[in-house]
């Protein structure tokens, strides 16, 4: 059902870790039992480090890892342009019936909204 790329994200996440962060935000989808928190360490508008915590379905965990991989080292302006398609490509998961992949994207957007 899931691709090798998806499996790598879900089974061997690199970004599920503790970091010293400057910005964070959480998104909860209560009807799914999903909860995601994204942590960002931002210096001079650059994402110096990123991490996540997730309790949820496999797609939420894989999407959280995908988001982190996509934004690590990026300028905040680039991060702002991150969308669902980018994340789905990174996950190699294109079933649009599952909207839960948006949870970490929403958490990321909430977190960077606080960047001044």
């Amino acid at each position, binding site marked *: 059902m899931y691709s090798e790329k998806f499996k790598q994200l879900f089974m061997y996440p690199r970004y599920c870790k503790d970091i010293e962060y400057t910005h964070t935000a959480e998104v909860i989808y209560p009807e799914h039992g999903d909860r995601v928190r994204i942590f960002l360490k931002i210096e001079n508008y650059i994402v110096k480090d990123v991490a996540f915590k997730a309790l949820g379905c*496999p797609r939420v*965990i894989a999407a959280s890892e995908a988001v982190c991989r996509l934004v690590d080292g990026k300028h905040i302006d680039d991060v702002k342009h991150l969308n669902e398609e980018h994340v789905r490509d990174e996950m190699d998961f294109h079933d649009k019936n599952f909207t839960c992949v948006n949870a970490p994207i929403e958490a990321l957007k909430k977190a960077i909204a606080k960047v001044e």
Partner: protein
Amino acid sequence: MRVYLDHAATTRVFDEVAQEVMKLFTQFYGNASSTHSHGYEARRFYEEARTKIAKHLNVEPDEIYFTSGGTESDNIAIRGFLRANFPNGGHIITTQIEHPAVLEVAKQLEKEGYEVTYLKPTEEGYVTPDDFRKAIRKNTVLASIMWVNNETGVIQPIDEISKIAREHGIVLHSDAVQAIGKIRIDARLVDMLSASGHKFYAPKGCGFLYVSKGIRIEPIMYGGGHEKGLRSGTENVPGAHGMAVALELIEKNYEAWSERVKKLKEKIVNAIECIPDHHINGSNTIFSHINVSFKGVHGESLATALDMCGISVSTASACASHHAKGRSHVLEAMELEDWIVDGAIRISLGYDNSEEEIDYFVEILQREVTRLRSMS
């Protein structure tokens, strides 16, 4: 290593059964309704299967009707009985934890004017005889109560419910799909009973319905008048024979096999007990089932992680708004906490699981629960 722990979903056909069924595909392939020697020899296998299955259930051969499986048996039993006896309405008692093959029929009957009471289970997953008694009305004509729940494995108190139904002259049907081949049951406790071959090591696409003599029932589909007019369609001789052979094998080896599975279940339960913050869902469960939730772990994620390690278990809950299945209606009916409902996985053992497989499973289970918890 690949480990199959989803025997409540389906089972691997026994080798002996597969060989026997193959014989019917290639050697005794006649149409059991044909009046020539090819037909007669197929008919002989078919009727022998009926006799063996009847014996297994402690009923008469002419009370067994072959069908395509559990869903069809449930539909014929419920709709066929009502059509024959109460076509203009009446009250039906069932439970909130039935398989959709009964629940969806009940919902449809409501639309057609029947009244339905859905009994609520306790938080341990069974309906109580007391609640059953209280639900009875003057116009109650039928009850449909499953023998064993497919998600939790909880055995329902059919013997007590049977007594109450008999006292009140209510016809009792039971979906025994998860019970046949696992626990010894006396079908005489109920008036109609549904079973499905692939749940007890026979092929998919075959099942049967027991209807006690004296119960009037009408077909729900029409054709060549097979199965005494109740279930038209060319006789599935390989399926019927496969079910009979599978049940014979289980009967012959039951003590040893069931003891072995019980020990494997014990091993899994002991391993689960070592993992903090878990909840085993349901009590008085069948020896092959474990339904368990781990706090801080989503059931679908755990099942997927196990799958990626070669282990097949099932989960009743999936993302509610995107998936046909949604949350488990069984665990929700038991009014369990959200983390328990979202976290549940179903482990269902079979007679063909080995100790080595279970050792591997418990090692991976403990590792993956710890890993997924550390992510939340």
